[in-house]
């Protein structure tokens, strides 16, 4: 993975915030201003060719972050820059160009393919929309893509329901690569698949990255999946980014207590290590994003929380070069324990 962390970033996200009205229907927001704060003040950068992992439990806003960057939903506040251009200010023409350079891979391989289109139509659709080549050229490209993702190019006239989950996800990947984009947002691309298929698809994504130099924003709820593919990893909790670092540091020296607890939950394939290591079990469920806790959003479940945590929001500050953490005690008491063998 040739990541180029110097120079201008490919994607720059600044203070991204997304809120949804908490009530649905006609009277939503008329009487109360209750909102679900799905993403709150998230900032990060992705460089060309790198893989940026975004981890967190369900409902923490990681998918919303991806969808907002893609402008499938509009942000409430904050900015997204792609190749230096503000995505929100793009006109129709520029937006179409953006869609060409940024693609999406979905979580559910059953829902993300139109059941009434053949594989050929599905994979060639991005090229059709952007008027790339003639019909024959497009079909030739589709065959090549199917071959690259490990499917039989002869199956071009089949329908999605004739394929298994893993094969369908390969179709989704072929579609995402049809325009050779610079960035692909992968929204939990393997979490709907069997573990044995997960590894195949992850390896395929890696291969394709080496071949085309595409950058990934890799969203997952599973740290062990992210570990396989990411250059840098960010951890989100309840709409906030709590820690961001290169993957090795994050896995060996996690600063934030939430990251530590997540890592302690990753099973280790060595029974001796697994027996001895301590598991940090968080009490309770994540609080509701409609009414997030004051101060540090994690303080209600944090094993090291002190008085200040309920009062003041911790800054997302640099604790080591390239390593950011949002915890009042990150610098004072870095715990830095991890039982993950790398």
């Amino acid at each position, binding site marked *: 993975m040739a990541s180029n962390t110097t120079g201008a970033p490919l994607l720059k996200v600044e203070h991204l915030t997304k809120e949804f009205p908490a009530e649905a229907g*006609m009277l939503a927001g008329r009487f109360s201003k209750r909102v679900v704060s799905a993403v709150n003040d998230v900032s990060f950068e992705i460089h060309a060719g790198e893989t940026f992992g975004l981890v967190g439990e369900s409902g923490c806003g990681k998918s919303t972050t991806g*969808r907002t960057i*893609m402008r*499938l939903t509009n942000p409430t506040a904050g900015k997204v820059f792609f190749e230096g251009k503000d995505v929100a200010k793009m006109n129709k023409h520029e*937006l*179409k160009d*953006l*869609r*060409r350079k*940024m*693609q*999406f891979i*979905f*979580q*559910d391989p059953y*829902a*993300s*393919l*139109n*059941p*009434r*289109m*053949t594989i050929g139509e599905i994979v060639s*659709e*991005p090229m059709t*929309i*952007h008027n790339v080549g003639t019909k024959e050229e497009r079909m030739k490209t589709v065959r090549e893509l199917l071959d690259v993702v*490990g*499917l*039989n190019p*002869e*199956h*071009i*006239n*089949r*329908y999605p*329901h*004739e*394929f*298994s989950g*893993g*094969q369908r996800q*390969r179709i*989704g990947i072929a*579609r995402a690569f049809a325009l050779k984009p610079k960035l692909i947002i992968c929204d939990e691309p393997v979490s709907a698949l069997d573990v044995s298929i997960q590894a195949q698809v992850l390896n395929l994504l890696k291969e394709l990255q080496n071949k085309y130099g595409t950058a990934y924003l890799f969203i997952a709820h599973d740290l062990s999946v992210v570990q396989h593919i990411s250059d840098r990893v960010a951890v989100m909790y309840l709409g906030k980014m709590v820690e961001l670092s290169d993957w090795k540091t994050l896995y060996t020296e996690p600063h934030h207590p939430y990251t530590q607890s997540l890592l302690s939950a990753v099973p280790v394939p060595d029974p001796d290590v697994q027996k001895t290591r301590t598991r940090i079990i968080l009490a309770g469920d994540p609080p509701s994003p409609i009414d997030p806790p004051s101060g540090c959003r994690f303080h209600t479940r944090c094993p090291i929380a002190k008085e200040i945590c309920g009062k003041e929001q911790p800054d997302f500050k640099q604790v080591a070069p390239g390593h950011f953490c949002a915890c009042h005690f990150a610098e004072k008491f870095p715990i830095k324990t991890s039982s993950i063998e790398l």
Partner: protein
Amino acid sequence: MKYPVSTQGAGAAAAAVVDATKSGGSASGAASRTLWGDAWKRLRQNKLAIVAAIWIIFVALVAITADLWAQQWLGSPTAADTTAMATSSLLPPSLEHPFGTDVTGRDILVRVIYGARISLTIGLLATAISTVIGLVMGALAAYYGGIFDTIIMRAADIFLAFPYVLFVLCLIAALGQSITNVFVAIGILGWPSIARVFRSAILSVKESDYVDAARAMGASDARIIARHIFPNSVASIVVYATMNIGSAILTEASISFLGMGVQPPNPSWGIMIQDGQAYLMTAPWLMIMPGLAILSTVLAFTLLGDGLRDALDVKMKDA
């Protein structure tokens, strides 16, 4: 993997699905396939639906060509035989009059045949009107949502809250009595259920990942509607409209039975049943024959609708 021939369908299709990545070998799914072609293959396997379709085509052909042969054979469907009333009135079914004759000596079969013209015309036209209104309303409600959705769907609820036949009768009374007004009334009042079905179909498709995927690719609204939303929501309407033809025929029969629809001496299945009810004990064929015509035709449309639903479901295993 070629399409397996009909008899071995399920097993071979299952094999096609588990067919591992990159195997395929001799597989040549490359033969061109269309959605409607596949649907037709699946429909052909449904014997009941095919029988129903053949029956509908038969009734339609008989009704359309009736002028060429029916009157020469069986006499006029409308003119009462005043001269020989005593001899030709209320004859039971025979070779000369296969369905018997009514009280004024008219042949029942020829009246059933001409009645089919009215029933099928009303069934088709009323359904066409309901479907067009229903599609537009359902699409507006689903696509624009918000206040549009609320107004249209509450209006639909109000329409559905009235007793249907009574509502049709009122509308005919207001519009004036004629065959045209009968199918206009049935058509206008049939839209709410179609709008509902179409709206919910669109809503579920609109929220789907593949529509998001198309948006993320930069597809225009027109393309998303034409290529993604419409093909995936229209199947339910085809099915619903087919079944609706049957119920429109039934409604026309009820309206005519109540004396507000087609007027005598024009034959309609509903009127014939009404005419026959006085002779239920002495000449039951007066009611039974048009009754069977209604029963078989409505049933045929329902069965065909059922068959279409299965045939248009892409997730059903292949033919």
